[in-house]
């Protein structure tokens, strides 16, 4: 690759970990780019970012980025992130997760992290399917869609994650798709800057599993369908439920301010005992 | 020497605190060894309350009370339930306001139990004006009757065990209880 064509985000990557494991046509690459662009736009210090993830394709992203990264157990990223952020609230903690990781096995942690309004930025990559394990339906799989565990079509109603998290108390929640990168970048930037729980759901294509199981064989076909089904929240607010069936509503679902969790923890120490929460105390013998 | 004490009564009478004060007095201020245990089961919610203390000159290995040398009963239900564990020639201290020793007369006679009546609830109400310090009145009576802890140690233990600002009332309650048995 010539100098001029080198991806401008390459300095942020662990080059010794490449090539990555993502399939051709996967949305993860575009989302990594969107995240790094948003981080630059937010004028964040990359060296101060710590990433946490669970299990799944999306949770592999932090492993390719050259920052401290904690690749944890399935569904539990937010609980690890809660400990990390509380122990050192000066860190900018970003969580990469997916629909199965965040909403199925980790659903309880998701709503409680939102309830606490802990200052984490969560990028939830929603491909409506379990990719890592080979195409099983997830809690966001549309009704009627196919997966290896739904050979006759999914009978369950999907979660609407951005709305769920907003209802649980997040101060920032938004949904975009991989065909609206500019909006996505802006939302991630806003999420990074929001001093509270920020949740950015990205509807994305998984051509390998969702596409193959649902007669959408190419990434472009998936992108086209996604684009055709997208409705902006402002328009969706005026539509009837029947009209919204099968649509992906994009936009912001929460953008507000309230007390943040780690600030509250620190406040108790400061206000009641005149003592700031210690950072890196494990390295000290005298406390 | 190992002395096993069981204090029992209703929930809310401060039975547990009375036991803690005995244990604290012995171990922190009398130079003895002590272990305090209590029941945590459903019986500890509402109804009955039971607290046990083992006090010894030497290390207390087995920490539980099996057959008490001293039984302190602040409710009739507890008196009837626990009298049967009391050792022969043991000491029974009851609050006559909340118990009736007539109900356990046979056991007392058969096992040669020494019975002391300490009207802790009445004393707390009449002399201190606070029914809730009946437990501390009882600690005073136990101290005087059994000598299992010293008066000085008991006062020090009360001072560090009761809520700040209530020390004086509680010491008065202790003194009133101590005087009951004189």
């Amino acid at each position, binding site marked *: 690759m010539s100098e001029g064509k080198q991806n401008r985000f390459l300095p942020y990557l662990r080059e010794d970990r490449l090539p990555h494991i993502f399939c051709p046509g996967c949305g993860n690459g575009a989302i990594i780019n969107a995240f790094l662009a948003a981080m630059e736009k937010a004028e964040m210090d990359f060296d101060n970012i*710590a990433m946490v993830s669970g299990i799944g394709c999306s949770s592999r992203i932090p492993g390719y980025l050259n920052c401290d990264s904690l690749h944890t157990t399935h569904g539990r990223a937010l609980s690890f992130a809660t400990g990390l952020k*509380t122990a050192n609230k000066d860190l900018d903690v970003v969580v990469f997760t997916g629909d199965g990781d965040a909403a199925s096995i980790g659903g309880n942690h998701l709503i409680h992290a939102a309830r606490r309004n802990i200052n984490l930025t969560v990028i939830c990559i929603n491909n409506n399917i379990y990719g890592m394990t080979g195409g099983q339906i997830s809690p966001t799989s549309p009704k009627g869609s196919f997966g290896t565990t739904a050979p006759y079509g999914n009978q369950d109603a999907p979660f609407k994650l951005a709305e769920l998290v907003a209802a649980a108390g997040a101060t920032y929640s938004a949904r975009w798709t991989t065909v609206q990168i500019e909006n996505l970048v802006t939302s991630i930037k806003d999420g990074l800057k929001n001093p509270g729980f920020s949740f950015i759901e990205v509807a994305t294509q998984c051509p390998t599993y969702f596409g193959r199981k649902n007669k959408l064989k190419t990434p472009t076909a998936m992108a086209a369908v996604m684009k055709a089904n997208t409705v902006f929240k402002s328009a969706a607010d005026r539509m009837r439920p029947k009209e919204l069936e099968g649509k992906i509503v994009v936009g912001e679902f929460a953008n507000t301010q309230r007390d943040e969790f780690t600030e509250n923890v620190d406040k108790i*120490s400061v206000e009641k*005992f005149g*003592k700031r929460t210690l950072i890196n105390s494990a390295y000290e013998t005298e*406390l | 020497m190992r002395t096993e004490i069981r204090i029992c009564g209703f929930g809310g009478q401060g039975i547990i605190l009375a036991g803690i004060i005995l244990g604290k007095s012995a171990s922190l201020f009398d130079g003895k060894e002590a272990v305090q*245990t209590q029941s945590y089961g459903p019986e500890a919610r509402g109804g009955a309350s039971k607290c046990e203390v083992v006090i010894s000159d030497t290390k207390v290995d*087995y*920490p539980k009370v099996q057959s008490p040398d001293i039984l302190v009963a602040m409710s009739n239900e507890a008196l009837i339930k626990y009298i049967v564990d009391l050792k022969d020639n043991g000491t029974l201290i009851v609050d006559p306001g909340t118990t009736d020793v007539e109900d356990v007369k046979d056991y007392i006679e058969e096992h040669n139990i020494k019975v002391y009546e300490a009207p802790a609830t009445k004393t707390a109400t009449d002399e201190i004006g606070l029914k809730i310090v009946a437990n501390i009145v009882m600690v005073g009576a136990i101290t005087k009757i059994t000598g299992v802890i010293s008066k000085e140690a008991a006062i020090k233990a009360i001072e560090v065990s009761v809520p700040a600002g209530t020390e004086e009332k509680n010491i008065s309650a202790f003194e009133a209880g101590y005087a009951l048995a004189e």
Partner: protein
Amino acid sequence: MAEEFFIQGNEACAKGAIAAGCRFFAGYPITPSTEVAETLARELPKVGGSFVQMEDEIASAGAIIGASWGGAKAMTATSGPGISLMQENIGYAFMSETPIVIVDVQRGSPSTAQPTMAAQGDMMQARWGSHGDYEPIALSPSSVQEFFDFTIKAFNLAEQYRVPVFVMADEVIGHMREKIIVDDDIEIVARVRPEKSDDYLPFENIENGTTPMPAFGDGFNIHVTGLTHDERGYPDTNTPETHDKLIQRICDKVLNNRDKICSVRSENCDDADIVLVSYGAPVRSVVEAVNKTDKKVGYIKIDTPWPFPEEQIKELTANASDVIVVEMNLGQMYYEVDRVVKDKNVHLLGVIGGLLPTPDEILEKIDEIGGN
């Protein structure tokens, strides 16, 4: 100057944690361990520490691992049902070599069983509860003082070997009150920050097995994963040698240091016909029984059930004909003892139901076996 307190075991544990430098606690209410959380909720803010009540025990285990990488000594406390829920993340802590302390105040089990009664039914869960091969360290206190001391020791061992350490208490020790003496010169093992260098490997295969651990934010940009990883921390899940080398090292760093970690206390074992073996609260009954009997009976108190003190048990039972394991389950450490003293008659006095075995029950068992 040393200070004296007459407090509950669970309070002593919390006090020990703070003395050891614990500045992060995450937990979920569960009897009979709740007083540990309640005490730390009150005390941690006074010393610049954080207390978080999580949504469940799974999250509690996750949060303390996150906090540990965030640079804090971190602990949780729970009982049987909670320990069951934590197991996957505990396995993650072994794999990622994260120092944490897990306190288990054991109660009647399995399932919810007897929340307010004592048992020692989780001993094998501390050993094998998470999937796969690993070598845990566990300490069992027999007094309120030891609950304080062993909690400190647990933090020190966790830092020294970069492992999760269990404090396997029980309802008796958790709830009873006794005097503890708190010395003012408590030995604390601080975490060691690595030197900044290009060839720093966070999971290096070094001889004693324990590499210095940086905190997130220190600038090392490390990757921590539960997947099989190389010395850099990078996943390498399909190379048999990588897995073998990693897991061997994770086990060896504890096994090769058994002589430093294992601890027992014993009396009268040299010329005893019968040796009693116990740990945790039942030790109290065992000591009382040994003091009462006029037969040639000695006892071994195991301070560290894991790693199992094989050598010490073998040596101390060398002259005995019979060994009785006294524990509050239907036989857990019994099988470990039986495994290492194959040539003796190993008996079990396993008491369940929630009450501490009485000295009389132990004396009866001694009579039943005979001895001189």
